[in-house]
């Protein structure tokens, strides 16, 4: 088994993700500081190189000076760039880690849903959330971390260096940078709005796409494909428009920034030249002039990156706002039902009433089932058979007393209930993985055994498949009956002390049904089985029958029930006659 992931605490706060990555962030900080402070080496050496050339032309230096200087330049740049490589990789590692953590967390809250968290989300929107938003979010966090150093630290380093050359000119040149920020800030609201519209359109397009693919066969059956393609085309056009708009707004920020910030360059050219000419505030040589100008240009570019920082943080916050409600404290249930031994228990209903929303549909239900027994539950039309099973999985309210072994059902917690009950409902709910995975669900049970017990092994060899073959999307490669039997195999593989099967034979043919019923008898010694069904072929073999009618139930053996309940008798006789006709 893989090592368990550790979950982020307080996952609904961005800071938590930074906190969890402290070691990586320390490496980012160290290499980032060295790299970014080292960044000033570029303009510094380039100015010195130009100056050296000037000096050689004027015979104030010799060729050797240039060689030394040039080699120094390459060595320093090489070292700084090496730090940059370390920083780049660490930042990306950080983003990759955060992305993984967020996806873990998102999936954890998806798989442990609140009753109503997921109901109002359409599938397409949720998909965008889970995938695109996490990506945008981590991208924003990565850029934020990157720019914190590449913009923040480096800007300070540049400004310090500029001030050392000429502090008055530095102030004069940098005066325009805040103005650039102000201008970008004006654009920010529009960038945000355009981005939100873009995201929304993207989500709509994804919804349409999923719809078109998910229901392709239905649309084909009803000849609606052309129309659905037209709807997709509309969504595409809208998406194209919104996406271009969002891109344009984002792209407009940078030149605006540069233009305003570069006004400073005019000051440098004019006043800097006066410095070199000896008529300015400070005496400069050419190295000072070129270094200062190169440094300032890089500073201006960095300032425009700060706009990118705003944009990416903006984008990230739009995405973050959408996933934040799904980011809940992780449920880390590190226990498995399968590790616990199956302790045979009896099940007793004593004067139980229940109903779909309030316990007002069935009344005075009393029966007892013991290990090794099969209790068949059936009833007239609208008798509410499924209700009894659903009480035991906590989906239906009830009054009265249900006793499980020595315990009161009402006092059992979720864990105890899962350890006691196994339930199979109408929907097969298969995963798109293999036959084996669908049966084991990751536990160590012997899948082949359960394939055999549900007669699936014959189907497998007929289809030339193995237990490790895929079953298709949600079991799409299987027929309805095969899906039901695979779901049954899964149920049997995980059978606890009390097994509830709600209509397991609905899509199963009578011959297979006989085989499966025989299997219950052979292997179900430890189990108490509640068989809810409206097909009564096997009810004579049940130990007891609970027959629901007129809002209550009668609990007898099959033979006694035939005598006592004319309704049951007619139901049974009608079906056996019909069954006979089909069998022949």
């Amino acid at each position, binding site marked *: 088994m893989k090592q368990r992931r550790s979950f982020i605490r307080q996952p609904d706060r961005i800071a938590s993700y930074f906190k969890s990555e402290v070691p990586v962030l320390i490496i980012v900080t160290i290499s980032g500081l060295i790299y970014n402070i080292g960044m000033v080496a570029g303009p510094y050496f380039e100015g010195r190189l130009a100056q050296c050339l000037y000096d050689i032309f004027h015979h104030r230096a010799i060729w050797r000076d240039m060689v030394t200087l040039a080699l120094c330049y390459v060595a320093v740049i090489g070292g700084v760039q090496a730090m940059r490589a370390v920083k780049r990789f660490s930042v990306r590692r950080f983003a990759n880690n955060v992305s993984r953590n967020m996806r873990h967390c998102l999936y954890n809250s998806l*798989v442990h849903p609140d009753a109503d968290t997921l109901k109002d989300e359409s599938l397409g929107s949720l998909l965008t959330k889970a995938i695109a938003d996490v990506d945008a979010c981590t991208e924003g966090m990565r850029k934020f971390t990157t720019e914190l150093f590449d913009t923040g630290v480096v800007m300070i380093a540049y400004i310090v260096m500029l001030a050392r050359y000429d502090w008055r000119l530095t102030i004069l040149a940098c005066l325009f940078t805040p103005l650039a920020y102000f201008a970008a800030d004006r654009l920010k609201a529009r960038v945000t709005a355009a981005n939100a519209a873009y995201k929304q359109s993207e989500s709509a397009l994804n919804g349409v796409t999923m719809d078109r693919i998910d229901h*392709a066969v239905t649309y084909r059956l009803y000849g*609606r*494909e052309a129309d659905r393609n037209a709807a997709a085309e509309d969504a595409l056009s809208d998406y194209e428009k919104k996406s271009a708009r969002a891109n344009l707004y984002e792209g407009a920020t940078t030149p605006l920034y540069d233009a305003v910030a570069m006004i400073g*360059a005019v000051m440098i050219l004019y006043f800097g030249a006066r410095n070199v000419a000896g008529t300015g505030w400070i005496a400069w040589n050419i190295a000072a002039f070129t270094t200062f100008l190169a440094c300032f240009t890089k500073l201006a570019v960095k300032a425009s990156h700060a706009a990118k920082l705003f944009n990416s943080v903006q984008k990230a916050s739009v995405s973050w706002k959408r996933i934040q409600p799904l980011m809940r404290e992780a449920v880390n249930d590190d226990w*498995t039902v399968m590790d616990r031994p199956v302790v045979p228990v009896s099940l007793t209903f004593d004067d139980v009433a229940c109903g779909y929303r309030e316990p007002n549909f069935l009344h005075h239900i009393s029966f007892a089932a013991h290990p090794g027994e099969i209790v068949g539950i059936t009833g007239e039309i*609208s008798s509410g058979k499924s209700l009894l099973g659903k009480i035991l999985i906590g989906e239906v309210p009830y009054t009265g007393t249900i006793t499980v072994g020595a315990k009161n059902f009402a006092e059992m917690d979720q864990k105890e209930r899962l350890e006691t009950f196994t339930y199979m409902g109408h929907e097969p709910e298969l995963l798109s993985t293999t036959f084996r995975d669908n049966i084991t669900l990751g536990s160590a049970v012997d899948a082949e055994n359960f394939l055999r017990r549900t007669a699936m092994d014959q189907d497998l060899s007929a289809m030339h498949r193995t237990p490790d073959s895929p079953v298709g999307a949600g079991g799409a490669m299987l027929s*309805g009956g095969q899906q039901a039997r695979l779901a049954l195999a899964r149920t049997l593989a995980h059978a606890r002390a009390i097994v509830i099967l709600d209509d397991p034979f609905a899509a199963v043919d009578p011959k297979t049904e006989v085989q499966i019923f025989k299997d219950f008898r052979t292997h179900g010694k430890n189990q108490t089985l509640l068989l809810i069904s409206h097909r009564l072929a096997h009810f004579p073999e049940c130990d007891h029958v609970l027959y629901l009618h007129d809002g209550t139930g009668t609990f007898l053996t099959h033979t006694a029930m035939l005598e006592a309940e004319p309704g049951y008798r007619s139901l049974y006789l009608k079906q056996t006659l019909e069954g006979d006709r*089909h069998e022949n």
Partner: protein
Amino acid sequence: MKTETNPLLRRTLGGVVRAHKGLTFGVCAAIAASVATALIPPLVLERVVNRLAARQAIPFALALLYFACVVIADLCESLQNAAITIFGQKMTHGIRSALFAKLSRLPADYFHTHQSGVTASIFTNDGDAIDILYSDGVVSMIADSFKLIAILAVIFTRSKGLGLIVLAVTPLLFLFTRWCQRRTGAAQLDNRRAIAKVNNHVPETLKCLRMIRLFHAERHMEDTYDGYIQESYDAVDRANLIDSIYSPVILTVQAAVVAFMMIFAARGRAASAFFGISVGSAVAMIAYVGQIFSPLENIGMEIQNIQAAAAAVHHISEFLAEPEWAPALTPPAAEAITAFDHLTFGYDPAQPVLKDLSFTVRPGERVTFVGRTGAGKSTVFRLLTGLYTPQAGRVWLGGQCPAGIAPEARRSLYGCVSQHFDLVPGTVRDQITLFDPSCGDDAVIRALHLAGLDDTVAGLPDGLDTPMGPGLFSKGQLQLLAIARALAADPKILLLDEITAGLDAETEARVLQAIQASAKGRTVLSISHRLSRAVGKTRIIEIGADDSDLN
């Protein structure tokens, strides 16, 4: 990979260029302007420094000119990027339209054998990658290549020696770039594969939530998800390593080139014919060398984007190359019979499910198909509705060849109800009309009435316009809704596939009642052990009776 990506790219590129001549011209003009204006600022700078070296003052106008040139260059670059973005969007749009159109031409088998999440990721993730391929890939690369050539030309006019050094280093850097891309490309492909699995896992979890809870399989589902995420993580990590060292290597080489140039420029007379430059030119050349490596670095990134998109293009090409649905049609039958004539069919032709099967159903007849599970009862319906065609023999539905029925004629010929209702996103009305505007309210209400669902729908907050949600209808009511959907266009034939399976008796009774009401005047073919009561006397056709070895 090149050989198979090119046709797709060329086709869409050609299409977009033809359809948007103005935009194409705009993109070209913006690129030209951007290349030209990017060259000017260092030339102005050269003049400035040369004047300084000669101890001359800088006129304010020259300073302003420098500023103006920088701003114009910036503006042109933004203009270029905007034009490229719009162009890229047009390309993506074209490809996605082609993908949607392809869906209509795929055989139904494709949808039964492919996970919808994986197919959807071709549309969404791979579609986005195509967008990047154009906006930050192909077109930008063309622009950057021009920039590279233009700068190289300017360098040659100032210093042949430097020009030759740059010319010598560029191919080496390209080889390095290619090496990086090969490694990154493989990693990107792995990542896309993993992401496709991740994408499929989420909706599947939603569909199976109850099972997951009751079997306490949350942890298993998380472990499966983690496995997919880890695959993606490892692939991204490999790509990141290359990405991190690429740019620093380029910039170090850039420094080396500058150092080399300066050493030779300072060598004096012997080298001056070759490297001889003024101080101003040296400063301008340093700026150009900085500029020449930035398009080169961009080209590297763009090739990487193209590489990343290559995986996407591969997926898309593969998808577009999927065998299309081209059924062999049979001539219509003499009368409106629904029949198999010595029909043999298998999903895998080597494993026939139905062997030499013949039956004839006349208009107005009621027929029930029986047989063990897996015998091919549902397959009979898939053949009757033309989703599949037989390998041998002939099939008719209402006298017509099913695969040849025109889309608009389908609903009035047959209605089809299966075990599970396929809920489409939209309102309650949309469930019945399937967005068909020709299916008016009268038809919808009549269908709902026949299905016995009119009261239920009338009780909804917005009636037919109520948005459909998972909890709005019970499972049985969804089956009734499916019946209404099938009846909406008053079809002559009803196909009912195990429509009461998994229903409790109460709901089953309602469904049977609805069938009873709607069967009047129609041919009814059903797969069910219990439908005979509702539709009256039925004929039994047994499927797969001779397959005794399986039982």
